């Protein structure tokens, strides 16, 4: 019962934060510098790790597909499998998971420490809403950077698959036929579909991590607790939302 209560409270507080920061959307042009900084934080710092991870996801997908499809003598379709699973599911999902670990945790830590050391209180007395200068630029930045990250994740992942297809002897198909299958079965719509998912996940992760950071109470110890909570809640939300968003987008 108590847990249900805190879930309802949490959702309420997140929704409130969303509306409050949205109400300052008009101030975004004047917050250009903060927006760029957040784009850098969100995009540039996660990019290397997204690229590395996507490459290996692509290779594993190709390996598994090669193994599974050999039985049907359908190895030429490996490209379609890697292409579709990367674009529709694994790209958005793994990028969001990395975002939660890399960016969400940093946001929660930063805002939680601002709260604990009374910086948020100082903002309040200055009548400068945290939702405006701390949350809004981050939300805008994640919406802009997520598609960029997804495009890179997809391309690198597809490429990873082709490397396995070409050089691993149990698979052994040419890059030409790999990419031909990939192009034929992976539609533009699938890529867009994946991006929409990633936008939802990324937005929710950043929003929830901001909310958890801003609602930290107590001393410095709570900063660590806030980070853990932010990451755990983000991961759960990504997995739960994945089902619903996939269903809706179908």
């Amino acid at each position, binding site marked *: 019962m108590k847990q249900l209560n805190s879930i309802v409270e949490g959702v309420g507080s997140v929704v409130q934060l969303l509306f409050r920061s949205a109400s300052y959307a008009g101030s975004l042009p004047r917050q250009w510098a903060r927006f760029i900084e957040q784009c850098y934080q969100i995009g540039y710092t996660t990019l290397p790790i997204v690229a590395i991870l996507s490459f290996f996801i692509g290779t594993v997908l190709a390996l598994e597909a090669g193994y599974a499809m050999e039985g049907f003598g359908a190895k030429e379709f490996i490209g379609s499998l890697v292409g579709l699973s990367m674009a529709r599911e694994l790209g958005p999902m793994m990028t969001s998971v990395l975002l939660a670990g890399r960016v969400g945790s940093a946001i929660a830590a*930063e805002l939680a*420490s*601002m709260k604990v*050391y*009374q*910086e948020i*209180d*100082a903002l*309040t*007395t*200055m*009548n*400068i809403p945290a939702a405006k*200068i701390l949350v809004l630029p981050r939300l805008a930045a994640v919406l802009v950077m997520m598609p960029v990250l997804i495009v890179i994740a997809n391309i690198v992942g597809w490429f990873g698959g082709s490397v396995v297809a070409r050089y691993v002897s149990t698979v052994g198909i040419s890059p030409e036929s790999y990419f031909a299958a990939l192009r034929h079965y992976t539609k533009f719509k699938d890529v867009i579909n994946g991006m929409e998912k990633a936008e939802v996940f990324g937005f929710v992760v950043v929003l929830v991590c901001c909310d958890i950071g801003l609602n930290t109470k107590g001393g410095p110890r709570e900063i660590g607790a806030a980070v853990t909570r932010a990451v755990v809640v983000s991961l759960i939300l990504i997995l739960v939302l994945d089902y619903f968003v996939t269903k809706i987008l179908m």
Partner: protein
Amino acid sequence: MDTQMESSCSKTRNPFTGAEANAVSVKVDHVCKSFSGVEVLKDISFEVIPGEIFVLMGPSGSGKSVLLRDIVGLDVPTSGTVTIDGQDPSLEATRDRVRVALVFQDGALFNSLSVYDNLALYPREHRSGDEDSISQKVMHALKILSVEDAAYKFPSELSGGMKKRVSIARALVMEPQLLLYDEPTSELDPVMSATISEIIATLKNEYSVTSIVVTHDRALAQTISNRVGIIMGGELITLGTPAELFATKDPRLVDFLNPKIDIKNPRFKKLESTKPS
């Protein structure tokens, strides 16, 4: 924009920033505050009249900082009310109308911003003036507190006393009508403490800024305050002019205001009976 609207009332110019302010009153009415059942403030009532310097003194842990948080609306009292100019300080509308600044006990500077940006944040966000005039304001305020050399340092690179001074400078840049200080001189040398007292007095005398000062600094209380309240154990036990207060015979106050250093019979000796064996 605000300044133009207010200029119809009685006002004076703020020396540090050139802005105009009109004085506001504060009313604390039967305020109680408890944290998970523990009463920290017990039925506190007083009024601060416009343009007054009101000093709050009291032993460590008596609830002074908690009271200041209630006055600026960062927390709400468990019961009772606080009003600034008749309005609830926790509302955004009140903050829009009345500029209230609080100098936090430990500064509460923005750690990710340089000292300069800490001060410039308020005028920039509230769009009071262009970058040039903001820069003048900021440097002027830093100069008044002799921390202009630290303008491009970050809070983590400052000493405790410098942080305090920067945080007072940040409050000045806000051109407040009501200024609350939580132990403004606690980490400063005697000369700097005197300067802070002068700043508070000047803001009152020439610019009718209402001030509430929490302090352990007797000199400050004696020389510049209009009235002094003493809080002990969450209760406002006395309230009066500094002259009345420092002449009091009330044993609790005499002990608090003129503590004796007794070398022959130190306090910790009295604890020896409870010492673990």
